[in-house]
């Protein structure tokens, strides 16, 4: 057996193991307890803004529409030195008693969050990126989960806001898959990202661990890793619907994903003592190692595809050069004999089947709808473009060259 075949099978086994592990973690995750009358605590939702004049008004309106006792909810919008019309937009909301508008010099998302942390005495603090919007029931559902579990933080289900472009539909399936993954990670007590859109934290825990830190453009991963390192539990509430503005072009998506992956790699390096560490449970032994291996797997398989396609193109070139375009290959008849049934291909089919099942589970969990083209687009488009952003992020991480926000 060739070495490449052995490597491919080894990587496919790891991918299969990770998917099965997630499915088990999901099946064993705690079911929400019965609803009863709970004392809803005070919550402050912070909206850090940097040049968000186009979306922040809708973000704030969605927060004002939250179904939550008015005396228990405060909203803090922090203008982090925006150069556009964000300050004017925020000014229009300053009259509302529930909203506090703060302004500061640009210092990054973490500094905006920390400023808000010093200006509130609410029991819980949430974050909502200024390009995201919450469903009216979101806060109540998240808080019920959080109170009942006594965890330090809760993450929501993040969905694509009103997808219209094909690249948004592509991301819709990915976000739905993420709904499942977040739930499964929580089931394994292995959440390592508390996303900017509507993660909610216990304020006293935040103060104990020192608030937010500057962390390679992915502060939401760093704070989750720090919570895990300090043995705090992070749970997930898949019924909490939060909608975020997804990139509308492949270029914007590439930039966003390079930043995310770069941040992941750099934070992982900062918290490398947790990787492979059994004392951190599934997070240390399965989730973080598989996340790293998955990057290697995608790049390795992509390189095999590139080699294969290059060989095919070269053969095609030789053919055309030899006999001209007149002898184009005939479309082969549909003969089951020529269906690829190598073990690697069969395992790949199984992995795709698993992925489709997980997307469906994510859809059921978040009670959302998927555009009919979403899943096919996701399957067809991501395999071609993901290797580029993974490679881009890997190069940046190697060069210690931070990925820009925009």
């Amino acid at each position, binding site marked *: 057996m060739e070495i490449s075949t052995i490597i491919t099978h080894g990587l496919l086994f790891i991918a*299969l193991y990770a998917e099965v*592990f997630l499915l088990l973690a999901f099946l064993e995750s705690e079911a929400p307890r019965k609803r009863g009358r709970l004392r809803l605590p005070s919550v402050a939702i912070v909206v850090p803004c940097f040049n968000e004049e186009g979306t922040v008004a809708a973000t704030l309106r969605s927060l004002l529409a939250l179904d939550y006792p008015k005396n228990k909810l405060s909203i803090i919008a922090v203008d982090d030195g925006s150069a556009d019309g964000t300050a004017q937009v925020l000014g229009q909301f300053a009259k509302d008693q529930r909203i506090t508008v703060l302004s500061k010099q640009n210092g990054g998302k973490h500094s905006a969050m920390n400023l808000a942390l010093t200006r509130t005495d609410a029991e819980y603090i949430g974050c909502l990126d200024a390009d995201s919007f919450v469903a009216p029931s979101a806060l109540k559902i998240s808080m019920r989960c959080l109170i009942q579990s006594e965890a330090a933080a809760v993450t929501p289900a993040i969905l694509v806001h009103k997808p219209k472009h094909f690249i948004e539909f592509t991301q819709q399936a990915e976000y739905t898959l993420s709904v499942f993954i977040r739930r499964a990670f929580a089931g394994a007590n292995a959440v390592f990202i508390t996303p900017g859109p509507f993660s909610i934290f216990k304020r006293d825990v935040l103060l104990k661990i020192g608030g937010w830190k500057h962390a390679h453009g992915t502060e939401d991963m760093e704070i989750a890793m720090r919570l895990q390192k300090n043995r705090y539990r992070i749970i997930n509430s898949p019924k909490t619907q939060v909608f975020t503005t997804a990139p509308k072009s492949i270029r914007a998506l590439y930039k966003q994903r390079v930043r995310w992956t770069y941040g992941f790699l750099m934070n992982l390096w900062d918290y490398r003592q947790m990787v492979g560490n059994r004392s951190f449970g599934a997070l240390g032994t399965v989730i973080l190692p598989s996340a790293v291996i998955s990057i290697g797997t995608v790049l390795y398989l992509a390189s095999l595809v590139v080699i294969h396609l290059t060989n095919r193109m070269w053969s095609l070139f030789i053919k055309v050069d030899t006999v001209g375009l007149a002898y184009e290959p005939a479309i082969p008849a549909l003969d089951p004999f020529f269906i690829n049934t190598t073990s690697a291909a*069969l395992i790949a089919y199984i992995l795709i089947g698993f992925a489709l099942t997980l997307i469906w589970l994510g859809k059921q969990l978040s009670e959302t709808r998927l555009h009919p083209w979403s899943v096919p687009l996701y399957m067809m488009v991501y395999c071609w473009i993901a290797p580029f952003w993974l490679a881009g992020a890997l190069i940046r991480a190697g060069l210690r060259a931070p990925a820009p926000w925009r």
Partner: protein
Amino acid sequence: MQQNNKRYLIAFVIAAAIFGTALAISTTLNNARLEQIRAIQENIATDILSLETQFELLSELSCRDIRENSVLSEELADVSRRVAYTEEKLGAENAEVLRLKRQYTLLQIKDLLLMKKVSQKCGLEPVFILYFYSNEQDCADCERQGYALTALAEEYPQLRIYSFDYHLDLPALTTLLTINDLNGELPALIIGEKPYYGFKSMEELTAIIPEIETLTAASSTEAR
């Protein structure tokens, strides 16, 4: 921690079971594929044997009947495609693939000999092209030569092209190489008993075979 250990183990057992099942299914399907090729080759062998027997027994058998019964080339071409695909997927060193390839090569040689006899008896003048290639790194132009011959066969289906892997370990093939006195340079073609070495384009091949324009009967096997 204990719950995690249990989960690791269960996940491993399930993943290993799925993985093992995929391997087993793949092996079964590959065996079925090899079996399918074997069955087709057996059919061809029977057909050749049958035709040979008829030829030996019934000298009065009309040439028209023989020609009607000798349409094996399509089947040989089909086997060629299947063997090539299986070789690509299972590897050129796979023992079963090698066995099938040897059998296929023998069938080609048998067909070649039979068609020569038939041509002699019936006064036909088909053009036989023997093409020797290599899948190893010692034949830079073999891929190109294969395309040229396939295109030529498409244009002139009456050509009888037989392709042989030069390095295949088969006594009958070694004899064929010896008879034709090939010097080892590849690609090599035998056209009208005469050897030609190196890549020959479609135009060159057409020039080498002047009777190509007048071909009416017979067909060809696909070149690799």
